[in-house]
C-alpha cells in the first residue's frame, strides 16, 4: 500500500461496478461476497440489516469492517457463515470460497464449510463458551467434526498444541478446566484456538477485543497477527475501534445502514476518506497526531431506522455534503471504483468522483 502515496502517478478510473452473482472470482481471492441481503422479519416489519453487500478478500489479506452499532456488521458476518437464525433470513446473494460457491441455504452442507474453511471469533468471550463443557471438549469438538479419522489421543494432542499456540500456559493441564476458570483474555485465546483449529482460509473476528482491557487487547491482537501470518489466513476484523483497524488491517470497509459505503486501502482512508460518512467517522475519533483543542466532533442526527429506509442514500439526512440534494434523496448511490486499476477503492456516494479528484488535487498542491 505504500505506493498509494504516489497519488500523482495514478491513472484515475471511475466507473460503476457491476458484480453479477455468477462472476468467477479472481485466482488470488479466497472469499468473495456477492450481493448479500439479510432481513429480519418481526410481526410485519422488515428490518433490512444487510443490503446488497459485495466484496472480495485475498489470501492472507486483513480486512477491517467498521461502522456504528446496528450498521449490520455482525449480521454480515453471520450471513457469510450462513448462521442467521429465524426470524432473520439471507434473502439474496452468494458467497464464494476458493472459487466455489458456498451452500448458504443448505445448513447440512454448510456445516462442512464452517469451521474448516471459515472460522469465527465471537464478540463476548464471557458468553461465547459453553459453561458446562470443559475447554478441551470444546476445542476438540471442531477438530473432530472435520477430521473424522483420528484417534482420541491425537485429537487431545492437537488440542494441547492449539492451546500452546495461543500461549496458554500449562496447556495440557488446563484442557480439563471449565470456562469460568479462565479470565476474559484467556477465553478469547481459547476462542481463537477454536476458530483456527482446522486452519481455515478465512477468519471472521467479530469485535474480538471489545470486552477486554487495553493491555489484553494488545496481546490478543498480537497473537492474532502472528497466527494468521503463520497460517496465511485471511482475516475479516469487525470492530468499531478505528485505531485497531489502522494498526492491523490492509483494507478498510465502512458499513452504514446495512450497506458497504466505502472500501479503501488503510492508508488511503486515514489520509482522507472519500465518503462523507467515513470522514465524519474519522473525525469523531481522537488522534494523537491531530491534537486540536475543542470538543471532539460527533455525527449529528440519529442512525437510520432499518425498518423504514429512505429511497435514496441512507446517510442523506445526516450528510454535510448531500443533505437536501435532490439526487441524494431520490437515488441510491451505486458503488464507484476509484484510483488506479487494482486499487482497493470503492465508494457509494453520488459525489465520490468529485470528492476524490478534489482530494487528489489538494494532495498535489500540498
Amino acid at each position, binding site marked *: 500500500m505504500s505506493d498509494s502515496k504516489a497519488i500523482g502517478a495514478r491513472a484515475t478510473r471511475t466507473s460503476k461496478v457491476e458484480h453479477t452473482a455468477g462472476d468467477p472470482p479472481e485466482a488470488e481471492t479466497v472469499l468473495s461476497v456477492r450481493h448479500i441481503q439479510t432481513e429480519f422479519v418481526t410481526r410485519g416489519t422488515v428490518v433490512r440489516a444487510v443490503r446488497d453487500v459485495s466484496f472480495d478478500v485475498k489470501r492472507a489479506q486483513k480486512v477491517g469492517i467498521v461502522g456504528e452499532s446496528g450498521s449490520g456488521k455482525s449480521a454480515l458476518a453471520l450471513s457469510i457463515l450462513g448462521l442467521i437464525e429465524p426470524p432473520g433470513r439471507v434473502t439474496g446473494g452468494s458467497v464464494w470460497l476458493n472459487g466455489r460457491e458456498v451452500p448458504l441455504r443448505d445448513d447440512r452442507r454448510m456445516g462442512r464449510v464452517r469451521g474448516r474453511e471459515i472460522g*469465527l471469533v465471537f464478540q463476548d468471550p464471557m458468553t461465547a463458551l*459453553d459453561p458446562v463443557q470443559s475447554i478441551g471438549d470444546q476445542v476438540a*469438538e471442531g477438530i473432530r467434526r472435520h477430521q473424522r479419522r483420528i484417534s482420541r489421543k491425537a485429537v487431545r494432542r492437537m488440542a494441547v498444541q492449539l492451546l500452546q499456540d495461543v500461549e496458554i500456559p500449562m496447556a495440557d493441564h488446563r484442557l480439563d478446566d*471449565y470456562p*469460568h476458570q479462565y479470565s476474559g483474555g484467556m477465553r478469547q485465546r481459547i476462542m481463537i484456538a477454536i476458530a483456527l483449529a482446522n486452519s481455515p482460509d478465512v477468519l471472521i473476528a467479530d469485535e474480538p477485543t471489545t470486552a477486554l482491557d487495553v493491555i489484553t487487547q494488545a496481546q490478543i491482537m498480537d497473537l492474532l497477527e502472528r497466527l494468521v501470518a503463520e497460517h496465511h489466513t485471511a482475516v475479516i476484523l469487525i470492530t468499531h475501534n478505528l485505531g485497531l483497524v489502522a494498526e492491523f488491517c490492509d483494507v478498510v470497509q465502512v458499513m452504514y445502514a446495512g450497506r458497504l459505503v466505502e472500501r479503501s486501502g488503510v492508508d488511503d482512508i486515514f489520509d482522507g476518506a472519500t465518503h462523507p460518512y467515513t470522514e465524519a467517522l474519522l473525525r469523531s475519533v481522537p488522534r494523537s497526531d491531530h491534537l486540536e483543542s475543542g470538543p471532539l466532533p460527533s455525527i449529528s442526527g440519529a442512525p437510520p431506522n432499518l425498518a423504514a429506509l429512505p429511497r435514496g442514500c441512507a446517510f442523506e439526512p445526516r450528510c454535510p455534503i448531500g443533505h437536501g440534494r435532490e439526487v441524494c434523496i431520490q437515488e441510491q448511490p451505486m458503488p464507484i471504483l476509484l484510483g488506479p486499476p487494482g486499487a482497493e477503492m470503492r465508494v457509494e456516494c453520488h459525489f465520490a468522483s468529485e470528492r476524490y479528484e478534489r482530494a487528489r488535487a489538494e494532495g498535489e498542491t500540498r
Partner: protein
Amino acid sequence: MIRFMGVKLASGLAAIFGASILAFIFLRIVPGNPARLILGPLATQQAIDAQITTMGLREPIYAQYLNYMGGFLRGNWGFSYSAGQPVTTQVANRLPATVELALYAFLFAFIAAVVLAVLSTYRRRAIIDGTVRGLAIIGLSMPPFWFGILVLMLFFSYFGILPGPEGRLSPTTAAPDAVTHLYTVDALLHGQFATFLDAVWHLILPAITLGLAPFAFLVRLLRANLLDVSHEAFIVVVRSKGIGRLWAFARHALPNAFLPTLTAAGLILAQLLSGSVLVEKVFNWPGIGALVSDSIVRQDYAVVQAFILLSAFCFVVVNIIVDLLYHVIDPRVRVS
C-alpha cells in the same frame, strides 16, 4: 464444600423438625377425641378414659411429641384401627405400587416435556409453540382426579382399548414373583412377557394422569430455559465450528437448559406425592395414595399422619440431595 454440605444438612434437619412439629400439632392436639374414634360411638366413658391413658394422651404435649417422634424414628408409625394392622405393615405392602406408578408417571412427564420443549423451541414454529404453551397451561390447571375419570370414560368405557380401574394387573393375571415388587421389572426378570405387557397396559392411564401436572410444569420450565440458552452466544460459536443445528441443540443447549430444572425436582416429587392421593383412588390403584384417601374417609388418621410426616421427610431429603447434586454437576458451582 464440606461446610456447605453441613449447612445444607443442618437446615434440612431444621426443616424436618419444624415440619414434624407442625404435623404433630395439627394431628394430635386438634382433633376432638382419638380414643372415641378408635373405640367407636358405643364405647363407655370408662373405656375411653382408659384408652386415652394407654395412648399417652394425658402426658404433657412435649412428652407426647417426643413419644410419637421416638416411635416414628424406631419404625412405630402407629396402629391403623380400621385395618387392624400397624401402619408400617400397611405402608410396606402398598409402597411398591405407588413407587412403580410414580416412576412411570415421572418417565412420561420427563420424556413428553423434553420432546415438546425441544419441538417448540428447535424450529420456533408459532403453531407448535402455541400448542405447547397451551398444553402446559391446561396441564397445570387440570384437576388430576377429574382428568383420570375423563380418560377412563374415553379409553375404557367408550373406545374400550385400555383397561378400567382394576388396579395393577388384570384379574386373570397372576402377580410375578416378588423381587423388586415392581411388576414390570419383576415380570421382565422372570421372562413373563405377557405379565409385563399387562402391567404396562394398566399403567398407561394412571401414569399419564399422575404425570400430567409434572409434565406441564417441566415443559414450561424447559421451554423457557431452552429459549434463553438458544440465544446465548456459545450456540453460535458451536455452530461456527461446523456443528449441525440438532447436535448443537442436543449437546449444548439441552444440558444448559436442564441444569436449572434440577432444582425443580423437589416440586415434582411434591406433585407426585399429593397427586398419588388423588389419582390412585380413581384407578383403584393399590398404593399408599389410595390407602390415605380411604383412611381419610374412615377417619383412621394414624395412616394419614404417617403419610404426612413421610412426605415431609422425602421432600426435605430430595431437596438436600438436589442441592448436593447441583454441586457435583454444575462446574461453575463445583469448583468455587
